């Protein structure tokens, strides 16, 4: 049978976006090491409820590492110590008996805290709305095999498309930059033949919307380190190249009008 752990937790509590926050200290005893990190928080919450204390609010949904809803800073690391792992997939056996664990929300001005550990990431949706799509109204598509795509291209596009939009990249970045997220979407679409007609318009619009919300990239690489889906830093380089090109391409389009 598996072991149980006794932990000292410091959990950030904040009643609302403009409220003053503080740490709640909890002695979490008898936590099964087979529990996931969020199941550990469930256990803590059930005990708080038993003591008539309002449970800690945190975002979560699929609990299988794909929806991108969960994510907290665990001892200062986005999604905690295990590489390529979302908070929901992190399990307590990665911790030791007696550990102190500090749990905080993502910290970035563009992700305001809503309550406790839950933040508002709508800025990501604004970036996608600015151009993160291929316009293909329903019914207009040619046969799927009319556009062959080299396997290598489809593979690299998929590598980028694997992003789950959790925001760990922003939370890990000292500048709260949104480059890894934005470049992953651009790389997914800009490498595909179907993505070419809108490529330059898309790039310019998404990058500039990103800059409305997020800080600047100074190549720390913390984002890729924290990314639970191992999205590559290379995509940022591709994005920067495409952005420079887009300035020229989009201008030439204007002159042709």
């Amino acid at each position, binding site marked *: *049978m*598996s072991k149980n752990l006794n932990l000292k937790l410091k959990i950030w509590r904040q009643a*609302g976006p403009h409220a003053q926050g503080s740490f709640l200290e909890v002695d979490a005893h008898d936590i099964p090491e087979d529990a996931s990190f969020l*199941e550990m928080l469930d256990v803590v919450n059930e005990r708080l409820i038993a003591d008539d204390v*309002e449970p800690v609010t945190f975002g979560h949904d699929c609990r299988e590492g794909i*929806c991108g809803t969960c994510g907290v800073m665990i001892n200062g690391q986005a999604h905690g110590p295990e590489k390529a792992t979302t908070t929901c997939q992190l*399990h307590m056996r990665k911790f030791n008996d007696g550990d102190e664990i500090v749990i905080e929300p993502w910290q970035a001005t563009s992700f305001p805290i809503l309550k406790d550990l839950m933040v508002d990431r709508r800025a990501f949706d604004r970036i996608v709305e600015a151009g993160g*799509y291929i316009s293909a109204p329903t019914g207009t598509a040619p046969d799927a095999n009319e556009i062959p795509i080299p396997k290598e291209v489809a593979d690299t596009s998929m590598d980028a*498309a694997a992003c789950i939009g959790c925001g760990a990249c922003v939370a890990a970045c000292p500048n709260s930059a949104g480059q890894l997220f934005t470049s992953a979407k651009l790389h997914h679409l800009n490498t*595909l033949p179907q993505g070419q007609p809108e490529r330059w318009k898309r790039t310019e619009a998404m990058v500039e919307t990103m800059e409305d919300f997020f800080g600047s990239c100074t190549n720390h690489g913390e984002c890729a380190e924290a990314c639970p889906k191992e999205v590559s830093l290379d995509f940022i380089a591709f994005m920067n190249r495409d952005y420079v090109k887009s300035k020229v391409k989009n201008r030439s389009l204007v002159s042709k009008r």
Partner: protein
Amino acid sequence: MVMLDAKIPEGSIEDKWDNHKFNVKLVNPANKRKFEVIVVGTGLAGASAAASLAELGYNVKVFTFHDSPRRAHSIAAQGGINGAKNYRNDGDSIYRLFYDTVKGGDYRAREANVYRLAQVSVDIIDQCAAQGVPFAREYGGLLANRSFGGAQVSRTFYARGQTGQQLLLGAYQALANAIQSGKVTLYNRSDVLDIVTKDGEAKGIVVRDMLTGQVHAHSAHAVVLATGGYGNVYYLSTNAMASNVTAAWRAHRKGALVANPCYTQIHPTCIPASDEFQSKLTLMSESLRNDGRIWVPRDRDEARSAGEVAEDERYYFLEEKYPSFGNLVPRDVASRNAKTVVDEGRGVGPLKNGVYLDFAAAIARDGEQAVRERYGNLFQMYERITGEDPYHTPMRIYPATHYTMGGLWVDYNLMTSVPGLYALGEANFSDHGANRLGASALMQGLADGYFVLPYTIGDYLAPKLGETPLSTGDPAFTQAVAEVDDRTRQWTSKKGGTHGVEYYHRELGKIVWEYCGMARNENGLEKALSEIPALREEFRKNVKVLGSPDGINTMLEKVNRVDDFMEFAELKVRDALHRNESCGGHFREESQTEEGEALRDDENFAYVGAWEWNGPDEAQTLHKEDLEFEYVKLTQRSYK
């Protein structure tokens, strides 16, 4: 008294959909902008419907309880999506996909709907490829396919083990495009808690803003529910934590019939529960059964580790019982057999609640590298959750609730029994009969949203040209808003209370799983029918909900959902009790062949069971829609 009319068009099965598309009323392009449509849910069905309706020119309001439309649970589908493209030249066709789906559903689906699903499956693949879904490719650049879930042709398209994610991102991006163009207004973090009707027609919805706690109404010419299934009635399932039956159940209480709620798919390859703290179960893709061998020790008291159990001491129960299909029998058969051996006391793992899925033979045959290439991400996921390395120790698996074939009753137009109210995707009952084939859920969600509703909704809207949506100041709305507000506030105004909402949900799940899970019998179902109302009473009296209703309160969100599950569970059990036959995912122990396989009773049960709400204190009324099979011959399924 409701009259069920499925509105199946005239003509041969090949012509029905084309005939129907010609015969439905049209709204001319300039007039579409005069109509408002509400779409609830942003999974595959909801997002694709909202985007497609907006492209046609309708004004769409879309609602999700998530922070972003991209997080709907369609995102978690792993395996793939079927499409009758016949790209592999292996004899696939629209007719074969249709035939397989009706047969796989154990002859409890409507032929005309299934045929249409197979027809539009080819368009879905084209649509998704055009949107930039990065499907797997061959070296020549053309699309790759695989065989899935025991199908005899390779018709499944996939994007690694993340097909649902990529299809949903495609639909989400189309939705984002429509939001940018101003044709769609998105309401996120909005919990839909009631459907508003007047004179029997759907007029709008009541929504609680999950950030402020404010309750308000939205009206439209039509309301579309794409709110997923009811799998979380079992507490433990592969569904996301927030997946719920609330919008569908509230529609039921306003007159929409619920069809076949006893049909639930229990997926055979999930990671077994480890203890009481377990919050959900994780699916391991069915593709693992292509190479893994399923076994348990023959000795019930076996205490050694798997590797020490000799070959002749192992019971490969699927291979022994079903020599021709072996480990690849359909989901319902694989699940029931796992339950049988575990019930016999042969289960493995610390809680003796699983069976082994062993890759040693595949690794010896093809090498560890080949196995890693095929299943690397799944093995990694398993290792994270269990702390065991499946390259060296066999995986432990056990069945878990995965998908629900029943749902809101809809006609051929996907309209419920409430005019103006539509149900799409897993929320409706229409295409999978009593058992769903692998890679067909994604197909159905997108078929409904991209290619069915955009045609059929015009038929309802066209005659309404010139009508404005009912004002939200109408008593029908103000009364519904007040009711929802009162219902929500009552939970936090109560003092005392014994347990949190999680406790009651878990208790409900135990009852439903025990008596209405993989195998059901009359005694057990009767027992559930007495235990569920008692639990509901206690829950309503004693549940403890802390905090304020005026702001974010995740307990409060959940308590409304569990309250609805408590009512839904009773109907589900009643449906299971009345259907005194076994079919697909519904196995009644009283109705089995001598070899213990599901035995249908076509003479008495070849119908859709649709239930009508009669108020909180009275049992629902059953309506029957007879199923006619003109093209597919009814046979006993055999996988020996």
